């Protein structure tokens, strides 16, 4: 695997060469994906075991740069686990074994010299359940910039205002920025967490059902936000609503029971899925 990867890196300009290399590796799902740019996250033969249970099985996947990739699949198939592997959050919990590689900008995030904080800063992870920090609305958004060294009051205010505006929360909270974040409704908390994640200016946004608690209007707003953000960010979204994936996804990954069944462009997956399981899932035979 590793020599192959090196070759991919080296011959990145030559699509045919890349195609050949990818063909060689068995677990390469996205064989016919030739990205305009380098993949932002490359997953190679990833196996994850949680408390001895095999959760992710030999997942290989390239997350394209500056595009929206939606991960779909039935509940419990390992979507959250995959996202948490990307920013190394799994390591915090009990008994995890991770095999294989996750490369971000070509660097293995499980490598020895990698600083985990830098990886996490690169990726804004929005967890499935919104979780505000025990502080005010303002401080929640300012928390990230503060720990990364922004002290200037005016600048912090600027950041907080911009990010809250971006997620459509500013008008609702501008009068009570000092109020505890916990008093917000769940939908507001979800947007607050998104603003908080954006405030550290990540390169990649990992959203675990980032719109699950939002009404259709707020959802549309957030989807619009994601569509505008993809000019600068690589976005990975876990979603349970296929319609949402249809609306915003450039690429779709379908997972089932810890395996990556199919990965391809959204058009491909939705109009001409190759795998029977994908067809069934898209067709609504199971959910």
């Amino acid at each position, binding site marked *: 695997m590793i020599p192959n990867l090196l070759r991919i890196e080296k011959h990145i300009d030559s699509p045919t060469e890349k195609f050949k290399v990818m063909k060689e590796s068995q677990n390469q799902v996205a064989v016919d994906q030739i990205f305009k740019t380098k993949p932002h996250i490359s997953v190679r033969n990833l196996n994850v075991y949680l408390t001895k249970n095999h959760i992710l099985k030999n997942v290989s996947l390239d997350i394209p740069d500056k595009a929206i990739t939606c991960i779909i699949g039935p509940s419990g198939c390992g979507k959250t686990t995959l996202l948490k592997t990307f920013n190394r959050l799994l390591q915090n919990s*009990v008994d995890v074994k991770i095999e294989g590689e996750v490369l971000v900008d070509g660097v293995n995030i499980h490598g020895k010299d990698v600083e985990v904080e830098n990886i996490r800063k690169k990726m*804004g992870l929005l967890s499935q359940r919104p*979780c505000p920090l025990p502080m005010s609305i303002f401080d929640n958004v300012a928390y990230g910039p503060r*720990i990364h060294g922004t002290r200037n009051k005016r600048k912090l205010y600027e950041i907080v205002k911009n990010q809250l505006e971006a997620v459509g929360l500013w008008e609702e909270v501008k009068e009570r920025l000092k109020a505890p974040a916990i008093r917000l409704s769940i939908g507001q908390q979800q947007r607050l967490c998104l603003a908080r994640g954006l405030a550290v200016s990540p390169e990649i946004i990992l959203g675990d059902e980032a719109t699950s608690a939002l009404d259709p209007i707020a959802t549309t707003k957030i989807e619009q936000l994601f569509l505008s953000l993809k000019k600068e960010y690589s976005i990975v979204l876990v979603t349970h609503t296929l319609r949402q994936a249809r609306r915003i996804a450039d690429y779709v990954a379908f997972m089932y029971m810890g395996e990556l069944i199919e990965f391809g462009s959204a058009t491909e997956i939705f109009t001409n899925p190759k795998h029977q399981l994908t067809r069934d899932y898209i067709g609504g035979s199971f959910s």
Partner: protein
Amino acid sequence: MEEKIFKALMMAATMIIVVSLFMIIVAVVKRGLPAMSWDMVSKIPGGGFYIGKEGGLLNAIIGSLYIVIGSITLGLSFSLPIVLYINLYLPEKSRLAQFTRLSFDVLFGIPSIVYGAFGFTLMVYLGLRSSLFAGILTVTFLIVPILIRSIDEVVRRVPKEMMDAALSLGATRSEIIKPILRQVAPGIITAIILSVGRGIGDAASVLFTAGYTDSIPTSLSQPVATLPLAIFFQLSSPIVEVQDRAYAAALILTFIVLVLSLAGRYYSRKFSKNKI
């Protein structure tokens, strides 16, 4: 029917406890209040204080406050790092963490006289005289198990998602301490209230270590009077007036604990508004 019986039983239990506690307070107030005077809380003992004449308990009041403030400060500056270490830096099922918790549970139950004896031994070993410092040290040993175990309980209940949220923003493990402390601040205050209660009222731990004196200490190496010992000594006097002053001292002690508890609850409420 069953419902009613249980309700009656619960009521009875509550009443028995409340009434007996109330009776203790009444007894203390009844005997202590007549002996109370402004002098009691504003003067140190005069020459004839111990035969019922002039002077007050200021030495013991200040002494007790010194001891309790000193030991809470010292105790917290050990307990917080210990709790944060076993919760953040040790793996979840770490032997060391389990062992630490178990030992503090055991220490929790040891009678305070044993701490007093231990403090005394330590004092002799270090060549110290009975002093404010030795008193603070011993009371610190006494309250550290309470501080650690009660803070540990609240830190353990900090939602993992909250820590993950902070970590996802690129926080280091030491940077997530701040939000964790904010989350557990009310719990820390409860721990402090419990420790104040145990530390300020305990006579046995200060008996050999803090000593007793009629003056207010001006340095850590001087002996210091405390309210529980003031109560103890005066209760054992044959003179009724002196005995009444023991109740007055008990009243003052109760009052201090009450005020500190109320202050604690006020701050606890203030801090818990951000709690998630």
